[in-house]
């Protein structure tokens, strides 16, 4: 987990004061930092608003089709930000700068809030809201004043992930011509391979990440949860829930799909006139699609398995070590993928040469990069397990294992499933680590889409983009149908 941090320290230690001075202490660095902070702030606030609203829609507003809707609403997470940025600038020439960057990143990020929030909401009953209603609150006020605070840990955790993503992303803002702080890092890897400069910038990001993680931890504080038996919340078909979700899906999924279809239409290189041409295309796409699906499922499974014990370690009881471990896990997520990937190259080729360029090491890199997206939602459900519940179970003569399996795991399950879905989607679109660490010959939809895009083969890239959206919706449908159950229909 600390691989990127060790690597950064090793590389940054090569810098002398003059280097740091010329790189950091100049007006441009300050301007870029302001850019990134503004962007990150706007994206985080918007993602929280949209994510919470959609979580309400998904758990209270749809009587039917919930797993499908959740999958559709999660789909934007699987679309790399540079692809949606590309689509927006091509569909609407001149749409660029701060508003475009905010739109592109918000669409890529709100599922990071939405899925944990759904997981949290699906565990909450209606008793407290009912009480509020009898005291004269409107349904909305009751939700905002009674239920929303109970989702706080989940939403804060998601918001932290969004903020970290927003400070580390480069491709999304860059393609809509908004310069983020990470431009210095990409510049360094694009030319003289000045790894020292990249590491100095990386350290700044790591410090920001730790700051954000600590802030979130302070705001979160301890929740005092009490065990309560509640009737499941009422689920009705709400027209406004359908309408709002429809708008988000239109902006986050339909527009990118239209843009991709348009590229396919414009391209001379994709022709689908005959069955044979379809078959050729399918034969070309299949290995990449299957590699993407296999890698993301394997990685999501490993991440889930590791995150589960980690979530208990960091949240119950809360210790300084736990706090440190938790904050450390966020570093990998807050750094640009290329930095994390190079750190794995640096360490991997020296310490584990036999595993270098194997699936095992690639998956290890995915763990370092994405364990926080699974840990976040999981931890918030674990935090909400009432204190003493395990002792109660033990006094009823359940053993430690039985308690874990029959009491704790079912309560933590929604968070675990939501986190697994997030990890799966994040891995599916991952680019730099896959490019550097995948076994020879393994190509994913994301790597080839990026490569074709760079060569202006937009039509073929768009085919892969569409396949990526479809392929990643499979695990999301399954996972969301598992955790979105419950709730009584009326």
């Amino acid at each position: 987990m600390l691989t990127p941090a060790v690597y950064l320290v090793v590389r940054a230690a090569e810098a002398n004061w003059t280097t740091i001075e010329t790189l950091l202490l100049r007006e441009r660095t300050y301007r870029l930092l302001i850019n990134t902070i503004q962007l990150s702030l706007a994206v985080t606030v918007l993602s929280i608003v949209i994510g919470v609203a959609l979580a309400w829609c998904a758990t209270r507003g749809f009587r039917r089709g919930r797993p499908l809707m959740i999958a559709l609403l999660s789909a934007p997470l699987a679309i790399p930000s540079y692809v949606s940025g590309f689509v927006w600038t091509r569909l609407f020439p001149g749409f660029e700068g701060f508003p475009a960057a905010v739109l592109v990143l918000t669409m890529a990020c709100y599922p990071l809030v939405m899925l944990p929030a759904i997981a949290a909401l699906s565990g909450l009953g209606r008793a407290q809201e009912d009480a509020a209603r009898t005291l004269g609150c409107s349904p909305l006020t009751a939700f905002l004043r009674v239920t929303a605070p109970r989702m706080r840990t989940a939403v804060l955790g998601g918001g932290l992930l969004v903020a970290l993503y927003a400070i580390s992303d480069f491709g999304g803002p860059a393609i809509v011509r908004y310069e983020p702080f990470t431009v210095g890092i990409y510049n360094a890897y694009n030319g003289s391979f000045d790894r020292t400069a990249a590491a100095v910038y990386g350290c700044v990001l790591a410090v920001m990440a730790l700051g954000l993680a600590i802030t979130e931890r302070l705001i979160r504080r301890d929740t005092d949860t009490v065990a309560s038996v509640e009737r499941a919340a009422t689920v009705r078909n709400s027209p406004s829930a359908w309408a709002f979700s429809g708008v988000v899906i239109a902006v986050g999924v339909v527009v990118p799909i239209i843009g991709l279809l348009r590229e396919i239409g414009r391209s001379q290189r994709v022709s689908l006139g005959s069955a044979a041409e379809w078959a050729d295309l399918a034969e070309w796409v299949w290995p990449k699609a299957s590699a993407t699906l296999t890698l993301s499922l394997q990685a999501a499974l490993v991440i889930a398995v590791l995150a589960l014990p980690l979530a208990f370690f960091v949240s119950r009881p809360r210790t300084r070590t736990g706090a440190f471990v938790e904050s450390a896990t966020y570093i990998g997520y807050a750094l640009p993928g290329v930095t994390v990937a190079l750190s794995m190259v640096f360490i991997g080729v020296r310490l584990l040469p036999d595993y270098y360029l194997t699936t095992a090491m690639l998956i290890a890199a995915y763990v370092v990069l994405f364990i926080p997206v699974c840990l976040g939602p999981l931890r918030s459900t674990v935090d909400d397990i009432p204190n003493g519940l395990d002792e109660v179970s033990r006094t009823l003569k359940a053993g430690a294992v039985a308690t874990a399996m029959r009491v704790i795991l079912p309560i933590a399950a929604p968070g675990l499933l939501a986190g697994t879905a997030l990890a799966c989607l994040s891995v599916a679109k991952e680019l730099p680590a896959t490019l550097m660490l995948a076994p020879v010959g393994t190509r994913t939809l994301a790597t080839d889409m990026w490569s074709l895009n760079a060569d202006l083969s937009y039509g073929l890239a768009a085919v892969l983009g569409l396949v990526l959206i479809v392929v990643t919706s499979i695990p999301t449908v399954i996972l969301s149908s598992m955790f979105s159950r419950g709730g009584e229909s009326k």
Partner: protein
Amino acid sequence: MWKRAFALGSSAVLAVGILAACGNDDGDDAAGTTGASNGEETTLTLYSGRSEDLVGPLIEQIGYEVPVEPRYDSKAAQILEEGDNSPADLFFAQDAGELGALANAGLLAELPEDITEMIPEAYRSESNSWAATSARSRVLIYDPAQLDEGDLPPSIDGLLDPELRGQVGYAPTNASFKSFVTGLRLIRGEDGAREWLEAFLANEPRVYDGNGPIVEEVGNGQLAAGLTNHYYWAKEVQEQGLDAVSSRLHFFSDGDPGALMNVAGIGVLESSENKEQAFDFIRQLLTPESQAYFASAAAGEYPLIGDAQLEVEGVPAIDELQPPRVNLDELADVAGTEELLTEVGAV
């Protein structure tokens, strides 16, 4: 108590189990490709900075003669981090600057003379550490609806004209732009280059993330002109057809820095245990047949050997161009260029 036990126990057992399970078969594959087994049957590992779409068919073809397993879209930065432990035998680079960076780090082996002598003198590396494979020219892509071909300047100094304020696009973080700036420094000296860059930035050029977006925005009329490499336009024509592409190319002339001719090239890693075979691979890249591939619409570059002519309409033949004379080895000083770009505030 159960929390800790559960935490530590399950994480260790399950994680190791799963990692080992999915690592096994691939581990064997990798060992097979990188190990130096006996003689001719070894499969080379090629790190290619160039994409599969661009050079995949050519590498596959050569692979029948010299077995090779390519890893496309690799970066020199990865080999620099791998150092002597790199599994790569060859690195096929997008740009002379990348090869220079590896050569400067002492990671490239010296090539045999018969290889270097196959390459025209102007495109040779004097250090003998890499071989140029194809050439590309820097160009100004422009929108004929906004700018008249006749009015376009013969030199990059014409881009400093206040009439072009805010209308020229460039990609400061892109490797090929940096090579252009390195060329500018070599031709006009450090002060001359700084002067041009400062005047260029004062004319408010529009910053892009790469060459693709520049080509796109000139094509849809958002941008009047942009600095890029000629083959990006060739790729756009391949993608959409000449009729659908409204932009055109303008080549600077008379040895202007803006007319820099850069090369893609390939080098053999010093750490490779299959150097002879890797040299054979390079020889295959330099045959007239292989070189003709670079001239095809799929690559759209200038071949260095043989008589193949570029098969892209609207791009002049290589002997009609008037590039500046630059020692390609010296293009490796990208660090100096980045220092200058940082100083003037472009990056």
